């Protein structure tokens, strides 16, 4: 039986991948990534991971 993916790992992985895409776009010059844009992204990454981790502990 295939194992069910863990929500925390899934969210964290997706967000890290998204973060990588953003950094790639910045490197290619498509995006101009500054601290004002990077800070919310970092907050979203950590916040969504924590939220997913916390919700999986419910019960």
């Amino acid at each position, binding site marked *: 039986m295939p194992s069910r993916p863990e929500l925390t790992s899934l969210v964290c992985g997706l967000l890290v991948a998204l973060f990588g895409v953003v950094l790639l776009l910045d490197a290619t010059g498509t995006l101009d990534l500054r601290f004002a844009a990077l800070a919310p*992204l970092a907050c*979203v990454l*950590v*916040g969504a991971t924590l*939220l997913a981790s916390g*919700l999986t*502990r419910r019960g």
Partner: protein
Amino acid sequence: MSARPAPVLRRDPAHRVLGGVCAGIARQVGVDPLVVRIAFVAAAFAGGLGFVLYAVAWVLIPADGEARAARVPRLAGRGAVEVALGVGLLVLALLLTFRALGLWLTDGVVWPVVLVAAGGALLWRESVGRPPQPEEPEPRPERPAAVVSRTGLGVALVIGAGVAFLGATNALSGARDVVLSVLVVALVLVIVFAPWILRLARSLAAERSERIRSEERAELAAHLHDSVLQTLALVQQRAGDPRAVAALARRQERELRAWLAQRPGTEATHLAAALEAAAVEVERDHGVPVEVVVVGDAELDERSRALAAAAREAMVNAAKFGGGSAVDVFAEVLDHEVQVYVRDRGPGFELAGVPEDRRGVRESILGRMARHGGRAAVHSAPGQGTEVELAVPR
């Protein structure tokens, strides 16, 4: 009487425009929903903050009805901390995005508002608590330290917000020197006087404990005098009548066991009944007629119970030392106090001439009334009978 459950904030879908957030808040605080809607719309024009607050409230506040409430996950311990941090960081990300996009008032306004909202939410949660959910086991009691630390964090956030706002608007510049001076002086005073204050507090606590113990000992002594010692005196008087002695012993044993077990027994619940019962006992034990007149009546509380006990002791003294004359008891229940007078026409006595080891008048009457906030006076003179005046406030 059980306390009413604290009101719980819920969305009101029955009167909704969008999600019922404004209607629920209006119902909770008792204002017209239009007022709350106007506030949200105004906040929405102020950098879009109203939209954010509404969305957060829509997600976090459960709607009316058990089906919605049952879906609220139960979070505790580390899970709750992670969810709270996660939501906080997402809101922070949203705010930073708005700031970067220029949809922003000023740092001096928004950040204090955010801090006040976070601190207020923590304090609100601690004061109101979470409603019990159906089909959930009884939650474990929280450690007091956790509750105190959350409340402290909430207070710190709100105070920090106020200080940040005042600092951003330069309102603190004039007061800074004064506050610093006051803080330094307060710190010095605390360091200097802390040992004395601590010692004084400990001394007061020890004195209070000793006073409580002393009053308990006095109550115990008064009760033993009124019951056991008097029964033993009766036993001596009736030593020639084995049946009477056995009956006295049985009655005293029952009374003492009930008192030790703190059972209410068949005690009267009202003052008039208590005085009547005491009069019957005194008549039976001492063979002296006791006339009781009570004007008004009152349910017995701790004070009036002590009053009845002191009146009983006065009746016993009148029966024992009144030379066989009838004992008159007059009680009156007034608006502000309850008064009892016990009178005999016996030979009378001088209170100063009563030996120190006789506890009847001093402890069972005078001391007992003083301990319960009442007053007692003995009016007597040789050859003129005795009147004991008792009163306790209502």
